[in-house]
C-alpha cells in the first residue's frame, strides 16, 4: 500500500471504475497543502507545535547531544581535570595519542579481557534463561497464577542497582553471608566458599547482574509470545508439531525480533561498571576490573584525573557496542513486511 491512507475510497471500487489510485492520493495530498487563502505551495508552518516541542528538544540537546559531542572531542585532547588549562580543546589537542596509548596500555588490555569474559558469561544467559522462563509462564492457563509469576519475575528489575549489588555483596560474605550459611546447613558443615575470591568473583557478579536483569527480558519475551497467533499452533498440531517441537519450530523463530531487541539492548554490556564497582571495586587482584571501571578510575581517581584518555577508552567501547549492534541487526534481520 502507498503511504497515504484513504478511508473514504475503497481500493476495490477504484479498480472497478478504472481510477488511478495513486493519482487520486496525490491530488488529495496537494489539496491538503492549499491554505485558506487559496495559495498552493509550501505547507503552513505550525509555530505552536514547534514552540511546544522546543523545551524538550533543548533539554535533549543539552543533556544528550552536547555530552556526546564533548566526549568525542575530549577523546582527542589531553584533558586533565586537575589542570584547568587543559580543558581547552585547541590548547591540549593531541590527535590520536590517547588511542595509541590505549593500545599499549597493559591495564586497558587486561580490563578488556575481563569485560569480554563477563560478556561471554552474561549475554547467553540473559537471552536463554528469560526465553525459557517466559515460555513456561506462557503455558500457565490460570490467569492469576501467570500474573503472580510475571510480578515475581519482574520484581528484581525495580530494585535500584546499587542497593541490589550491596545486598548481593552481603550474601556473598564468606563468614556471615546467607549463601554459605544455607549451603553449610544443607551439607551439615561450615563452608568457606569465597564467592568474591579471585576465581569466582566475575561469575558471582554475573549471577547478581543476571538476577537483576532477567525479569525485564522475560517480560519482553512474554509480550512476544502473547503476540503469536494461536492459529499457527493449531495448524502445526495438525501436522504433528506439538509440545517441544512447536516451541522450537514455531515460537522461537517468531521471537526473532525480540531476540534482536534484547541483544541490541545488551550490546553495551562490555562497559559494565556499577556492579564491579560496588561489589569488588575491581578486585581481588584486578580480577573484576572491567573496562568501564578502569576508565572511571582513570577519570576520577588516579593521578591527574585524565578525562581525555578516559574519554578515548569510552569512545572505543561505544564503537565496539555500535559495531556489535550492527552485526546483530544484520544477522537477525527479518523479511520486511
Amino acid at each position: 500500500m502507498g503511504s497515504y491512507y484513504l478511508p473514504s475510497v475503497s481500493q476495490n471500487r477504484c479498480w472497478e471504475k478504472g481510477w488511478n489510485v495513486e493519482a487520486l492520493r496525490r491530488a488529495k495530498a496537494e489539496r491538503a497543502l492549499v491554505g485558506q487563502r487559496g495559495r498552493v505551495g509550501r505547507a503552513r508552518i505550525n509555530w505552536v507545535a514547534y514552540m511546544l516541542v522546543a523545551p524538550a528538544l533543548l533539554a535533549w540537546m543539552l543533556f544528550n547531544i552536547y555530552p556526546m559531542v564533548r566526549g568525542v572531542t575530549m577523546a582527542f585532547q589531553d584533558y586533565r581535570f586537575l589542570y584547568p588549562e587543559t580543558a581547552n580543546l585547541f590548547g591540549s589537542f593531541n590527535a590520536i595519542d590517547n588511542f595509541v596509548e590505549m593500545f599499549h596500555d597493559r591495564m586497558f588490555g587486561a580490563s578488556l579481557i575481563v569485560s569480554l569474559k563477563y560478556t561471554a558469561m552474561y549475554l547467553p544467559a540473559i537471552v536463554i534463561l528469560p526465553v525459557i522462563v517466559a515460555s513456561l509462564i506462557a503455558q500457565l492457563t490460570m490467569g492469576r497464577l501467570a500474573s503472580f509469576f510475571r510480578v515475581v519475575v519482574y520484581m528484581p528489575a525495580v530494585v535500584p542497582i546499587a542497593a541490589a549489588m550491596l545486598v548481593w555483596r552481603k550474601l556473598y560474605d564468606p563468614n556471615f553471608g546467607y549463601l554459605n550459611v544455607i549451603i553449610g546447613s544443607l551439607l551439615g558443615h561450615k563452608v568457606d566458599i569465597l564467592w568474591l575470591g579471585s576465581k569466582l568473583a566475575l561469575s558471582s557478579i554475573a549471577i547478581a547482574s543476571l538476577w537483576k536483569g532477567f525479569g525485564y527480558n522475560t517480560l519482553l519475551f512474554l509480550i512476544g509470545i502473547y503476540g503469536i497467533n494461536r492459529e499457527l499452533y493449531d495448524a502445526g498440531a495438525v501436522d504433528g508439531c506439538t509440545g517441544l517441537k512447536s516451541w522450537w519450530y514455531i515460537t522461537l523463530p517468531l521471537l526473532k525480533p525480540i531476540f534482536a531487541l534484547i541483544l541490541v539492548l545488551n550490546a553495551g554490556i562490555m562497559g559494565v561498571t556499577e556492579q564491579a564497582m560496588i561489589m569488588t571495586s575491581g578486585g581481588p587482584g584486578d580480577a573484576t576490573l572491567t573496562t568501564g571501571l578502569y576508565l572511571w578510575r582513570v577519570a576520577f581517581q588516579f593521578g591527574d584525573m585524565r578525562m581525555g584518555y578516559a574519554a578515548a577508552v569510552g569512545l572505543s567501547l561505544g564503537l565496539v557496542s555500535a559495531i556489535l549492534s550492527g552485526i546483530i541487526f544484520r544477522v537477525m534481520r527479518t523479511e520486511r513486511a
Partner: protein
Amino acid sequence: MMGSRISRRQLLKLGALVSAGVLAGCAPKVVEKIVKETVIVEKEVAAPAPKVPKQVKLICMDWVRNEIPIDVWTTEYNSGRTDHQIVYERYVSGWDKKVLSAIRAGTNEVSGYFEMRAFEYALGWSKIGLIQPFDPYINASSAPGASGLIDDMLPVIRGQCILEGNMYGFPIDFDETGMAYRLDYFDAVGQDGLPGTWEEIGEVAAAIREKFKGEQVYGIGSSASWYIFGGPGAIFYNTSPQVFDEDGIVRYDSEEFVRALELCKSWADKEISEAPFGTGWVSSWLAGKWGIAWNQHPLAIWAQNNLGKQTVSNPQPLPLKEKGSGCAVWAISWACINKAPHPQEYVDYLITLFYPGNEIGVTMNKKICGTGKLPSFQKAWDEVIAKDPNLQWMMGMGEIAAKAVAPPGLTTAAIQQDRQRAWSEKFFAGEVGAKEAMDKCMEEIKGEIAKMK
C-alpha cells in the same frame, strides 16, 4: 471552526489572557504593605534588624561524629555566638571533586574537611588548589593557646602536618600500627608474655589455631593490604630499616617486603590465618574469631568493647625485637579548604575545641582518648593521659611515637595503595610469585607516576 465553537488559537489566546490576569493578581501588593509596616516599626521602636550569622560549613566523615561527640560540643560552641555558626555538612564520596569545582567556579562554601592523613594527601591537594595552609590564620587567631600550638605538637605529628614549611594539617589524634592479643587464648595455649618477633607470633598463632580449630578460630589476621598501616605492609615497616625510596614510594620490590608477603601467605596456606588473608577483617576480629590481630592500634579497644577488657589486651606495639623502622604513625587531621569563605572563624573553632590549651579542649581530648585514639599535642599527654590511671597503657604507644620518624609528604599515595592491593591479592591467590608481583607492582606505579604532569 464553525458556529460558536472556539478554535485552538482562540483557546490559546484565552489561556494566555487568564494566566496574565492570575499573575497580575498575584503581584506583590505585599511589598507595599511590608514597607509600610517597617516604617511604622522604625518610628516606634527603632530596633536594628537582626544580623544573619555567617555559616562556617565543614565536611566531616560520619565515623568521627559517631565516635567523638563533636556535634554536642559544637552546639555548645555555637550557643551565644551571633557572628558565626559552625555547621556540619554531610560527607559524600567524591566531595573533593565537588569542592574543587566550586573553588574554580568561585562558589565554594566549605571552609574545612576532616579527616585527612596529611602526609598522604596534603601536598597533592595543595598542588591542585584544594587546600591552603593554616599558618596565617593560626598566627592571627585570638583563641586561647593559638600561639604555642605548633610547638606543642608531637615531633612525628609536626613532621607530617607541616610540609614544605606550611602547616597543612590541624591534627586531632593519631594512630599507630599495633598488636592486639586474645589473653584467654594465650592462657589456653600456655603462652606467657608477648612474642618478640614475627616468627614467634606465628608459632603462638599456630598453637591457637590447633587448639580452637573446632570453633572456627584462626590464630592471626589483619587487613589483606592496607599500605603501610596493616597487613604485610606493617610487617615490612617493622622489619625494614628503610621504608620509602628517594621518590617517596614504598620499597615494594625490596627483600623485606617480599619476605613479609611470603610470611603472610605461609600463614594462610597453613590455615593459621583466614584465606585470602583478612577478608572482612574487622568483623572476624570483633566476633572473636582471631587469636592475634595487627592493624591500627584502636582495634584492641574495639574488641575490648565487644568481648571484655579481661579478654583482650590493651593495644601493644609491633614486635620489639625486630630491627626495622618500628611502626607507621599517622596523624588524622583537619584541612583548610582553599578560598574558604570563613577560614579565620574555622581555625578559631578548631583551636578552641581541639587544642587542649583551654577547658573545652582538655575535655574534648579526654573524649578522644576515651575512644582509644592518641592525642597529637603534648599538653594532652600531660593534662589528660598522665593524670588518668585508665589511660596509662598509652604511655608505651607514646614512647614509640616519640622515636618515630614522620613519613615523607606524598602525591602518589592512591596509586601506590591501589597497585599494592591488586598485586598482593594476585600473589595471595597463587597467580604469581611474591618477587614477580612486587616487581610488576613497582613497574605499574612508576608507569602511572610517569603519566602525571
